[in-house]
């Protein structure tokens, strides 16, 4: 009896367990997934993926924390402050190309400088919301620092008093002189009047982030309310800083940190853009990616022929090459070297060569003991084997490369030939050891050279310069360091080898680098004539000719002062594995993705 009971109990328990398991099993199944091939081949226009070294960290590259090149590409693709969909983009030849999909900008008057922005009546964000002048006003409010009332400690750059609302990667220079814009909502126009002339006015792009998203995030009932708020809030005054404005603070919060992402954001508002591409999926960090789909509202003239663009983040340059070979990415922008070129050639990839906008240069420190004497400066410059450096570093990648002979223009700019004819840098084409020895007259000055030990180009240039200068009697000491940048301007070296990257357009860097005590003037260069020219350049509006004259003149003066030598323009490279056509090299900061609308998949 008990035995039977026990058996019955066990059987019951067994049945119960089995039934439970079956239920659980049923609950843990899924409907069969459609096989991949039917997943949309019919509708798919194709996928193109491109590798980038740095991972994207935000859907906004305008803040100091997010000012990274991959974030800039995201902005360009989404038409935020740059790229098609906003008022203009910069092409591979550094022309500013207006894009009239959503609106136009127009110079109304030179004095005072007045610019009018006009939205098209059908201008629209990617979520279908109409664009309004409030979108433009918000961009102006962010870029101008109009509401800021902070005072900075000039030595450390720290805020001593007052508020900075919107953090900016660039500066407020230019826009900070504008008065509150005039707005005509009916006509969809916004007019900016500058207090002072501003040379780069045509780079001020007021289509950036959508105002309706900001309005919602900061708790405004509507875009109109936001517009009224911006109008009614008084301009910030550093003399008498106000209490932090709560609503401005919450607007700024979205701009400053709201667009930072570590995973695909849940908030669809962050994905709203004006450009042809809208983010679709994202995975952070090295090995991750950001993928884009087409903007459903896109009506521009230029339309991509494929419907998914993927930027993969691959930090290791050699991993990029093998990923290209293996078909995991279709386009890469590798650091050019003879080996890279040969390797890509070797597996049948397509190489598209170009020249970057950056150039390596040797600067002499004017306030160092050795180089306070112009004769020693000249003697040292005469020993620099520029042709040899070029042949070791650039020629293997770019056969027709030439030594760079201007500190102002790179060789693919039209002004370059005139500059070279006028400035005389070509006198230093080949080292002249004899003349250098003569100038030194038996002295053996010691020269400490600062460079980045982690950049093989700089290490090689240093070794070549060292070998050559020693022949003339110089004692060249190695002052290279991986922390070279924090040593710039420290006075612990007599000469430095490094590179400048020019944005390609704009003149803001002229006073930076050349003016006495300019922010990028690390070698104590000071010439009254140059100072005056640099000042003039900042207030010259719409007169390209004069600006070119100024630059050529600075070039000539720097040569006469034995400022240093430009070495070579850095070669650039884009490579595809043959599946993508229409890729064009772009030496600017946007890189190869600048013309995705011209890309096509091979064989289609």
């Amino acid at each position, binding site marked *: 009896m008990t035995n039977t009971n026990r058996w019955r109990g066990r059987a019951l328990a067994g049945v119960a367990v089995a039934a439970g398991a079956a239920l*659980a*099993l049923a609950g*843990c*199944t*899924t*409907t*069969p*997934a459609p*096989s*991949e*091939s039917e997943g949309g081949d019919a509708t*798919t226009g194709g*996928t193109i*993926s491109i590798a980038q070294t740095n*991972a994207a*960290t935000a859907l906004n590259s305008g803040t*100091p*924390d*997010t000012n990274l090149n991959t974030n800039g590409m995201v902005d360009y693709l989404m038409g935020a402050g740059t790229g098609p969909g906003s008022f203009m983009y910069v092409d591979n030849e550094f022309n500013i190309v207006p894009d009239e999909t959503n609106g136009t900008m127009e110079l109304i008057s030179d004095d005072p400088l007045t610019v009018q922005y006009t939205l098209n009546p059908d201008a629209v964000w990617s979520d279908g919301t109409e664009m309004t002048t409030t979108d433009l006003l918000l961009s102006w409010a962010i870029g101008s620092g109009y509401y800021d009332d902070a005072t*900075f400690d000039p030595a*450390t*750059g*720290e*805020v001593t008093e007052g508020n900075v609302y919107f*953090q*900016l*990667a660039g*500066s*407020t220079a230019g826009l900070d002189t504008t008065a509150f814009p005039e707005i005509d909502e009916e006509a969809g126009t916004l007019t900016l009047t500058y207090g002072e002339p501003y040379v780069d006015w045509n780079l001020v792009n007021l289509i950036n982030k959508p105002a309706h998203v900001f309005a919602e995030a900061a708790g405004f009932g509507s875009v109109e309310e936001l517009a009224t708020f911006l109008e009614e809030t008084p301009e910030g005054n550093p003399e008498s800083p106000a209490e932090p404005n709560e609503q401005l603070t919450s607007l700024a919060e979205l701009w400053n940190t709201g667009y*930072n992402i570590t995973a695909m954001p849940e908030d669809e508002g962050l994905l709203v853009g004006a450009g042809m591409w809208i983010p679709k999926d994202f*995975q*952070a*960090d*090295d*090995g*991750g*990616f950001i993928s884009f789909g087409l903007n459903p509202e896109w009506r521009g003239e230029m339309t991509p022929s494929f419907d*998914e663009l*993927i930027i*993969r*983040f691959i*930090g*290791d340059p*050699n*991993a*990029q090459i*093998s*990923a290209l*070979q*293996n*078909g*995991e990415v279709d386009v890469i922008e590798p650091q050019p070297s003879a080996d890279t070129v040969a390797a890509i050639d070797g597996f049948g990839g397509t190489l598209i060569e170009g020249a970057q906008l950056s150039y390596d240069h040797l600067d002499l420190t004017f306030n160092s003991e050795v180089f306070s004497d112009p004769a020693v400066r000249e003697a040292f410059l005469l020993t620099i084997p520029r042709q040899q450096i070029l042949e070791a570093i650039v020629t293997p990648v770019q056969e027709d490369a030439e030594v760079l002979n201007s500190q102002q223009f790179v060789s693919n700019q039209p002004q370059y030939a005139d500059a070279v004819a006028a400035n005389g840098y070509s006198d230093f084409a080949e080292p002249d050891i004899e003349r250098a020895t003569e100038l030194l007259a038996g002295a053996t000055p010691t020269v400490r050279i600062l460079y980045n030990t982690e950049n093989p180009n700089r290490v090689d240039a240093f070794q070549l310069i060292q070998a050559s200068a020693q022949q003339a009697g110089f004692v060249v000491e190695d002052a290279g360091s991986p*922390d*070279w*940048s*924090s040593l710039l301007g420290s006075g612990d070296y007599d000469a430095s080898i490094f590179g*400048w990257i020019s944005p390609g357009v704009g003149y803001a860097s002229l006073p*930076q*680098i050349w003016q006495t005590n300019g*922010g990028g003037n690390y070698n104590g260069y000071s010439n009254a004539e140059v100072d005056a020219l640099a000042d003039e350049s900042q207030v010259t509006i719409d007169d390209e000719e004069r600006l070119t004259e100024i630059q050529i003149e600075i070039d000539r003066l720097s040569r006469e002062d034995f400022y240093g030598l430009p070495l070579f323009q850095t070669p650039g490279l884009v490579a595809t594995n043959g599946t993508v056509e229409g890729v064009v090299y772009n030496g600017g900061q946007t890189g190869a993705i600048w013309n995705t609308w011209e890309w096509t998949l091979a064989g289609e």
Partner: protein
Amino acid sequence: MLSFVVRRIIASILTLVVASFIMYVLTANSGNPLQDLLASNAPNAQQLIGQRTERLSLDVPPPLRWFQWAAGAAGCLVPFASCDLGVNLNFTPVTALLPGAVASTVRLVAASTILAILLGVITGIVSALRQYSAFDLGMTFFSFFLYSLPSFLAAVLLKEFIAIDFNNWLSGADSSFGLVPTIVITLVVAFFLQAIVAGSMKNRLITFGVSAAATLGVLLYMDATNWFQSPGLGPVGLLILIAGVAFVAVVLVTGLGNRRALLAAGITGAIAYAAYFALQGLFDISTIWTIAILGLATAVVSFAVGWVLGGNDRSQVIRVAMITGIVSGLLVVADRYLQAWSTYIASPRINNRPIATVGEQTVGLTGDMWVMGLDTFTHFLLPTIALTLISFAGYTRYARAGLLEVLNQDYIRTARAKGLSERTVVMRHAFRNMLIPITTIVAADIGALLGGAIITERVFAISGMGSLFAVSLDRVDLNPIMGYFLVIAVTAILFNFIADLSYALLDPRVRVK
């Protein structure tokens, strides 16, 4: 015991505090976190420098700044307190960076650790049992070679020869094996197996002949059926494999003389084989949880079979049944993965080039769990092999030395003197005692695993802990480095503790004091 644990915890906390202080000061002095701004020619560079200085308190000397950091970090170790590890240079909180990095690293190192332990221990045992044979010397050389091989070198070779060449071969027009590779593979496998078997010349020759014939047959079959394009074990292959598993399990655990074990293994194998036919429909709509439940069911059923048939040797028979059941179950699941392979490689995003060299997934790929599982497999294959090769060497040496040491002990001689069979002596007496030191090594190794593999992660573009550390150190980004340190230090301390405890539990000679 309790006082030991308490003292240990207090000592650990002290260790952590001091180590974090040293780490903090060292890292802070390793470079300048403002270097990117100092080199920039942005018009507002000075202002940006000011902002970063203010935000990260860079004007406070590092030893004092450590206290600020420690105050925030202390919250992370106390339950329910707010955890603040600071922000990185880009103002992203470190607490948002760590989980993803830990997850990637665990995915990366888990499989390679298990593989390295399994392969290393097995190789080490065989080496020790065949001490100074050709196999032993060959393995010694091989493992030292792997140990001496820098990981970036291994990674480059794997990418070149396994990923790119295999993919080229697979997607190429002629994807047959070719005559020479077939012969070479056959000879290598046969030579390897005869070296393991050792013994008399006759035995070796027989092994060589049989294994060469079997390998050749399998290769010809695979070639004829385009196996790598549409692989699978098939009903016949599965039957042979399950039978093999049952046989090996019985031989290793009880020996063929045990009828009950043989019967249990046979029944479990048969159930697994029947399940293969019954479950195909369910597999098509499976999720990972379905498989987990099935796995549990397999364990329960094999346990039950062993229990019912066990008789006097119940525990051993249960072990045989469970080994057979679980391994056979894995084979059935593996077969289903293989069936999904042809769908996977035909996907336009894969385009017949399945083995990946970078990243953790194919962007935008969609599919059922089998396809997605294969995608993970193809992405982690190369880094896993690279890491396995490196740590394999260590385990081989430990296992070999450990087993040799144990085999010299008195109790082994006693066991032999009792007339126990060699299998019983090795498997039941020597093997278990050899595992004691290995267990502690494994525990300590796992503790160090979360540190990630800096070089491997970099070369294969996997955003784990190692890459977090390397990227942050490049930028002298102090807070993420300290977050990284906190995670690995806590796990290392924890697992060392577990290692010590397990040693005390496994080896009664050791007293915890």
